[in-house]
């Protein structure tokens, strides 16, 4: 059966080739991946692409990426045909052999790769590339059924990771889960994950801990979504009390991003809820704070103005405005003021019992 993506690559190239033979300007169009070109599909729960496209052709401003896109598509074709994969970094280095068309920075290479994904509506693995980002750590009452390098089944028990954790692989589609946990707790910082893991919080609360380690990678988002969908588990998110935590981490996990708008659909968790640290928490729990910096304030104001997710949820607007008024932010680890295990003994149990204090 001919690979769908190979056909897409071939057809796109053929289109360019024919246009040139007919002495017409060849073009490559891809969707614009930005917040300005998404709509928040509330029912489905994620950011959807609108129609705006960008075109690359034989002009001084776009010819370079035009050539680079074609050459990367050719690389994809080779990877798929040979059943091989290349990391994003490797793809960047391959380009160093392309003479004038080589990428100067990896960010340029990543961007062209994302464009090709968007052109064909596929995930990067389908065009032969994998991320080199860190997947995310998992601990708790969960059994994962994976395969080893020879394709033989492997059974991983996440309760038996000792003081460590299970690391989410790059590709999660093939995983199968077994669990008796009641919910998934997604945590921003490694430090907080460490404390909860060391003191067996997942045992006490009967949950699965996932450390996102900052902005969650695609694999991490897909993992949480898959696990939550298949085992019908609610997802609660616990981040620092600042705009980065709310927007870059939580919002991306929940509805996706402008940059990944072309693949958001399966890579977000619309069911997720934000349990803390909320601006109200900062006041109620009298947490030690830091003043908001210029960059924080700008982030908050931008979110109020431009983010379709915020624009839809009044509670988030209230929360952001409140924090801008308060002019301070607080980290999740600030709870240690009231005792190292205050978070385990008091904060989390109280919050989990009280949905009224959550944000959508």
């Amino acid at each position: 059966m001919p690979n769908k993506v190979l056909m897409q690559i071939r057809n796109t190239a053929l289109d360019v080739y024919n246009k040139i033979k007919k002495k017409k300007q060849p073009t490559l169009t891809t969707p614009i991946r930005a917040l300005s070109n998404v709509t928040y599909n509330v029912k489905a729960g994620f950011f959807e692409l609108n129609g705006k496209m960008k075109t690359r052709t034989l002009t001084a401003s776009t010819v370079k990426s035009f050539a680079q896109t074609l050459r990367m598509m050719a690389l994809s074709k080779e990877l798929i045909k040979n059943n091989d994969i290349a990391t994003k970094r490797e793809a960047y280095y391959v380009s160093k052999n392309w003479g004038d068309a080589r990428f100067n920075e990896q960010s340029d290479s990543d961007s062209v790769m994302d464009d090709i994904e968007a052109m064909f509506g596929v995930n990067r693995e389908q065009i032969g590339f994998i991320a080199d980002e860190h997947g995310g750590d998992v601990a708790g009452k969960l059994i994962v059924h994976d395969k080893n390098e020879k394709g033989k089944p492997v059974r991983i028990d996440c309760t038996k990771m000792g003081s460590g954790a299970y690391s989410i692989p790059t590709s999660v589609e093939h995983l199968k889960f077994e669990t008796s946990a009641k919910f998934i707790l997604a945590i921003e910082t490694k430090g907080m994950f460490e404390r909860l893991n060391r003191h067996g919080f997942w045992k006490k609360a009967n949950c699965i801990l996932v450390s996102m380690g900052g902005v969650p990678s695609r694999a991490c988002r897909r993992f949480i979504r898959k696990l939550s969908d298949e085992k019908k588990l609610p997802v609660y998110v616990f981040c620092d009390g600042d705009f980065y935590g709310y927007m870059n981490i939580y919002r991306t996990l929940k509805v996706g991003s402008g940059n990944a708008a072309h693949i958001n659909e399966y890579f977000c968790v619309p069911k997720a809820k934000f349990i803390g640290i909320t601006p109200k928490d900062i006041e109620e729990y009298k947490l030690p704070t830091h003043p908001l910096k210029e960059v924080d304030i700008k982030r908050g104001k931008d979110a109020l103005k431009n983010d379709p997710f915020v624009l839809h949820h009044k509670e988030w607007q209230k929360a952001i405005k409140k924090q801008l008024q308060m002019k301070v932010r607080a980290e999740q680890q600030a709870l240690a003021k009231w005792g190292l295990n205050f978070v385990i003994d008091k904060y989390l149990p109280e919050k989990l019992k009280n949905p009224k204090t959550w944000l959508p």
Partner: protein
Amino acid sequence: MAPTIAEEMARKQREISIAEFFEKNRHLLGFDNKRKALLTAVKEAVDNALDACEEANIIPDIIVEVIEMGSDRYRVIVEDNGPGIVKNQIPKIFAKLLYGSKFHRLKQSRGQQGIGISASVMYSQLTTGRAARILSKISPNKPAHYYELKIDTSKNKPLILKDEEREWDKPHGTRVELDLEGSYIKAGQSVDNYLKQTAIINPHVTITYVNPKAEQIIFPRATEEMPRQTSEIKPHPYGVELGLLLKMLRNTPFRTLQAFFVNEFSRVGAGTAKLICEQALVPPSISPHKVTREDAEKLINAIQKTKIISPPTDCISPIGEELLEKGLRKEVNAEYYCAVTRNPSVYRGNPFQVEVGIAYGGDQSQNEPATLLRFANRVPLLYQQGGCAIYKSVVQTNWKPYGLNQSNGALPIGPVTIAVHIASVWVPFTSESKEAIAHYPEIISEIKLALQEAGRKLQKYTLKKRRVKEELKKRSYIEKYIPHVAIGLKEILDLKKYETENIENELRKMLEKHRGKLEDMGFDPSKNIDFDEELARIGKEEEKETQEEQ
């Protein structure tokens, strides 16, 4: 009674003749140093020759010889085919300062004050003790007349040392021969450069020049057409000062003030004359000789308040855009030329006209300041560039929009030659040596307008050149990636070699077609057929030689 100190001093005071004055103040006339002295002598003689020919409507053939006599002495010989000078006038013209036909009239001509040639004679006599030798013939039917002359400086009168008839095979003309102390260099402010620029700005003249190295250089004329005859005009009331008005009132033959104004001035009719008189509360019927000093002052004020039409301007003969450009073409091998002749304008009642020529690019150096050529009444100005109104106007014009670099208060920098010519019935110089033009605001303003007009023409060219350059840059940038587009397609579609090459060619063709045909803005040095390389070299190459010698 013993004389008072004042009486003692009075005994020592005596009248100083104008000749004695200039004897001690040579720098005022252009004889400050030996190099300049040689140039000034040649210049004065050539100016007179050209003026004479043009007045007589004879197409000029001038011969200039500079012979090295040793010990810094040179013999300067200037011979023309002009109308010649009447025998009786010769001594006064050559050996009496401030004698001439030109001071009392307003007419565009090279010589203005009647000092020039006599000053040269005086300088020659001062430095070598020798007399000036003049030969002149006014008609083929009459013999030529030969004089040897000196100046009696205490009385400002000619001393005739020889006076005889001679045979001369020319039908008419004048030949001036002077021995003087001087210094000859080929480059820069030199006789060679002066003659070359004179030839450029006077395309109807042929000059044959024999330099001190006995090399003969001919500057052939570029046109047989004589320039338009200039005409004399009466002074315009706006330009008259109290002193001149009083003098005119005293000397006029007209019997009423009204008639005086109508006849002695330009642009004054009976009505205007009456208006002036009424405004000044002086009766128009009064005799001009009876007008008092106070009345004259009132008349001056009245004139300024009365509306009088501008003076006639057809008395000026400009070079014209075509010939100005042609002259530049001979001298500079450039990519682009343009010339502008403005309409005549007026300063202090005197009509004047400004012309500008620009030669851009080509052989000229990119990072040097512009070469500025200045001319007044078809005479090159080689000295006092910094003090000249032309220089000031160029420096105060903003050349950056026209494609040149420029620091504040300096000449523009770039491959450009700017030629500026001012023609007037009376050119205002900063000193008697006629080296730089005085800073009248009306003149500076006109020059700037002319420069800007020419600059705008230049701008069209430099903008076009820059656009083409940028377009070429863009194209070569895009071209860089065309092979990669072809490689991408080749790898995806498994194209054969010829198919890939085909694609590359198609892409190149498409690039050219889509972006339009580019004009070739390159400089072809052989394209300018008017360029005379030998001519251009005159006055330049020796700078290198002198540098090597040093």
